[in-house]
């Protein structure tokens, strides 16, 4: 799977599940922090959706370090490569 494909899949999950991101252009440098209603519970939900989509498990300790969509893509790529 290419990085572009991974990014597109993650962007779709974010767009469906994160309030405030429905109509926002999502790029690798788009910030995913606790603005726009992304509280910790919502973020966990989105991460679970992403993990299920790719069949991976991203270490929970790294979740809070993710700032941008690109950070999530990096983590998914790293787990897929294992």
């Amino acid at each position, binding site marked *: 799977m290419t990085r572009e494909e991974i990014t597109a899949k993650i962007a779709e999950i974010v767009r469906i599940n994160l309030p405030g991101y429905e109509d926002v252009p999502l790029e690798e440098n788009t*910030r995913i*922090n*606790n*603005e726009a*209603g992304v*509280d*910790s*519970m*919502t*973020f*966990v*939900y989105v991460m*679970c959706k992403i*993990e299920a989509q790719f069949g991976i*498990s991203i270490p*929970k*300790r790294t979740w*809070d*370090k993710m*700032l941008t969509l690109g950070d999530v893509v990096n983590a998914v790529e790293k787990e897929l490569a294992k």
Partner: protein
Amino acid sequence: MKRCHHLCQLLSEQSPEATSLVFFAQGNKIHWSYKDLLKNIEDFPLPKARCVGVFASTTVEAIVSIFALAGKRRIVLLDPDSELSTLVAQIQKTHIGALLGDDELAAELHEYLDADTKCSDVDILFFTSGTTSKAKAVMLSEESLCAAAYNGGSLLPLRPEDTLLSVLPYSHVFGFVCALLWPLSFGCAVCLGRGTRSIFFDFGEYHPTVASLVPQMAGFLAAKKLFNPELRLILIGAGTCDSAVLNLIRSQGIQVSFGYGLTETSSGVALSLGVDPYAMSVCPDYQIEIAADGEIILHGGPTFMKGYYNDSESTANVLRDGALYTGDLGRVENGLLYITGRKKEILVFNDGTKLFLPEFEGDLRKILGQDADFAVLQGKDGSIILYIHKPTGIEEQIEKFNLAYPRSHRVAKIIYAPSPLPRTKTGKVQRYLITTD
């Protein structure tokens, strides 16, 4: 029932085959009877260390460890999901000599243990607000925790046939008392949540009739319609809850009870039982006094903490002449307690966590400079607002700053104030004069 062990003995005699715990092990759903639970507690090999840290997630290992150690060792309940630096600070502060409940994490933290600790007390320590050096550990007793479960249960009894889903970590006193001791004290079955990733599926898997949740979880699960049809009661505690969330849950045919309590009181002080979720009946054994400034002062509680660990000054500020000064503001009407705000410089979040403002603002000042003119406020949605006059253009600095904090404790919004912040003559920011709308 004064002790966890006694509780299990009693239930094991009364209903030995009744289900005590339901959990998953290697993909299989396991049912333990009360007899099984008691046997595992009694067979548990006690470590030599006098002060034991337990990673208190919702696992059968954590429950057995805690119940077996209670009354025999000092126990420090730790949240395995905490930052490593936080865990190190907590281990060093309380001089933990052994760690149980997560072998991998225990190995990673082994070098910080104090094998020579010689403590004779058998307190159970819960960490409350504060993340690093200023973190406070509240010393509770097994008896006070059991009394709190009984106290709450006398107002809000469960049925022996109830099954309660337990998803909150036992390192949080609300989770330990209201999602473990409370259901066990009625001989109910407790279903152990499978961790953060599974909370969205646990209701569908276990079909509980009761759940104890923090406001954020309750609101999110209700909005996603993830509650099972058998669920009849949700006890919400450890933070303020928006009425829209409560109404949403009720619209799904589920009774909601809202609880007020502190770690310092071993959890429940008051519970809402009627239609108005904010009108709370005070648990037996407590008398409430409202001070001239509106602070809620509690008298006569058998569930009061012994004090803050190694912090007599902070203890003396809160426990005075047998009364506990809560730092919360409230009023009493027709015998019911209403919480109206907070006096202490602590922010309480809807995920059940707290933030000690002076410590947080001190950390911010380190990156913004000593001359920075700012205040940290909490928005109506519970998020953190940084209200700042100077310096400006700090977005990147704050973004980096945020990474050191859990998601709910991050600055969500920066508002630049057009003029210097209002202050008292002593230089303290007058937060109540600031409007952020």
